[in-house]
């Protein structure tokens, strides 16, 4: 109802303010678009996650086929402050006792030990159903391994004065470099416990339908709405359960864009509904803001911030204690909405499409990736 109300409101404003201008000003509110990067946090990977996108759609009959790669380094050790999980414990394999608090009590809510690099490859096909309606199909292939970025990240931390033995450096120094461990504990029970690296597991495909219902004008922004639907693959045997949710997810994104000469500003607000949440959040809220600077008609620099609610629901754990800050208090940052910033470069010619960039967290919460690099390239006809 809120979306419907907003659409009606915008439509009415459009009629009053920019009906004559919109045709004359066609294109001034469109750029190459925001960075199309989804949340890469490990626990989010099996679920649909709405990603920012351009308001502009492909024209009737146009197609774009692209291949993308997103590499994310994630390290979270909720037992870091007490030194309960170090190289010694990971070498012998973690047990539930490693996730008790320092007094040996079960921790309510979620505890994590995540040390992984995820590589999400995606094949995307887009097609213009009309001049303002676009269809997209995306198929991911996901790998989880130890990766190779740990030493670089720790070096960067050291260079800018962040200790890898403390919270700012995520207690990385307590663990071996480039190892793979994936442990999620909820209320004293394992949800995931895996040290087996996985390569190119086919994820669940999703399709999008995007409608650019207004090109905007001198006053009003261009506006589009995107609907996404993720198909369910119920084969979750072995480590495939880390990649597939086995349920149908769907979501929407409402996107605005406004041009100021060579600058284009984008704003989006959306939601993902998770069909089979396995004890995690049943819906995720997303919001983004992008600023694109157009070097030319063909290439742009983009700065972007993305906020999102957590995949971890709020636990019933008490946020007060009589014995100092405890494990449950520290872990409460897992359920907090979080934000990341991203920078990137986009290129689009008549034939070639290319996008690259990186994402960096700035909140130091335990529900986000440390560092993401991404590329996407494709052909357009």
């Amino acid at each position, binding site marked *: 109802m809120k979306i419907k109300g907003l659409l009606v409101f915008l439509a009415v404003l459009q009629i009053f303010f920019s009906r004559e201008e919109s045709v004359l000003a066609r294109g001034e509110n469109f750029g190459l678009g925001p960075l199309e990067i989804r949340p890469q946090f490990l626990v989010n990977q099996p679920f649909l996650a709405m990603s920012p996108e351009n308001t502009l759609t492909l024209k009737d009959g146009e197609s774009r086929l692209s291949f993308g790669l997103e590499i994310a380094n994630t390290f979270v050790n909720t037992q870091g402050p007490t030194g309960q999980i170090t190289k010694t414990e990971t070498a012998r394999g973690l047990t539930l006792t490693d996730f008790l608090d320092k007094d040996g009590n079960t921790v309510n809510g979620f505890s994590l030990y995540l040390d992984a690099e995820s590589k999400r490859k995606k094949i995307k096909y887009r097609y213009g159903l009309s001049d303002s309606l676009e269809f997209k199909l995306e198929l991911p292939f996901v790998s989880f391994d130890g990766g190779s970025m740990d030493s670089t990240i720790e070096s960067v931390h050291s260079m800018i004065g962040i200790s890898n033995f403390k919270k700012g450096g995520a207690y990385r120094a307590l663990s071996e470099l480039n190892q793979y461990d994936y442990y999620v504990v909820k209320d004293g029970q394992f949800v995931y416990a895996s040290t087996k690296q996985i390569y190119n597991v086919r994820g669940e495909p999703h399709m999008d339908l995007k409608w650019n219902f207004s090109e905007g004008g001198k006053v009003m922004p261009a506006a589009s709405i995107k609907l996404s639907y993720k198909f369910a693959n119920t084969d979750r045997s072995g480590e495939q359960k880390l990649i597939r949710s086995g349920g149908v997810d769907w979501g929407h994104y409402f996107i605005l864009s406004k041009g*100021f000469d060579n600058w284009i500003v984008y704003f989006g607000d959306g939601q993902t509904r998770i069909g089979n949440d396995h004890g995690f959040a049943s819906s995720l809220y997303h919001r983004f803001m992008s600023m694109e*600077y157009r*070097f030319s008609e063909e290439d742009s620099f983009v700065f972007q911030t993305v906020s999102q609610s957590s995949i971890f629901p709020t636990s019933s754990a008490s946020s007060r204690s*009589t014995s*100092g800050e405890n494990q449950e208090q520290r872990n409460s940052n897992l359920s907090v909405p979080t934000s990341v910033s991203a920078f990137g470069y986009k290129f689009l010619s008549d034939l070639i499409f290319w996008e690259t960039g990186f994402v960096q967290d700035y909140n130091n919460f335990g529900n986000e990736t440390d560092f993401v690099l991404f590329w996407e390239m494709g052909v357009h006809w």
Partner: protein
Amino acid sequence: MRLYSKLLLTAASLLLFTFTGWSAEKTVLYFALQFGNQDTGSPAPVVGSKDAYLSTLENIHGPLKENREVSPKVLSFDFYKTSGSFASGFGLEVHSYNKSYSFENDDSSVNLSAVGLLYGLNFYYRGDFWYPFMGFGTGNYSVKVEEQLTTEGSTTYGTVFGQVDKPFYYKFGVRIPLNGIGIVFTQQYISADLKVETENKPLSLGGTASFIGLYYAF
């Protein structure tokens, strides 16, 4: 290091292209650093409301020893597209501050650290000697609240992380250009309430703020 070099190169390219690609009459870019006071206990008129978290603690631990003013550092980036004497544009600003509160009746304390990333639309008049502006927008605040509360000899500890997803702000002010650099005065009103789980009461991170700073235009 290679990544860092690429970032510097990208930033340098951005500045270079910006400088050579636009005439000064059409689009203006500003970087600004501002300091000032923000009264988090004074709700933003129309959009704000009185918070209750600290007043609830005051009922138990006595009046606050400190006032509700914080001193944010504000780093902002704005660009405007001019049309005659009028301009419209977009702005991005980062606010950060820390504050410690203590109480009259016992040794209880609350520490607050907040970072806000705000963005929105600005409208602007280019006069001969001064450029008044107004703007509004949204963004997010990330915050950590640490409590240490003493009641009848026993102490409880609490840590609450949070994010305000949908703050709203409006502001007005004036820029006084002085040959490329200039002085900027801003009066800003921010509605950003965080529900603190320990008391289940809202804490205002915004309020009424006055800033002064320097900007660089190019």
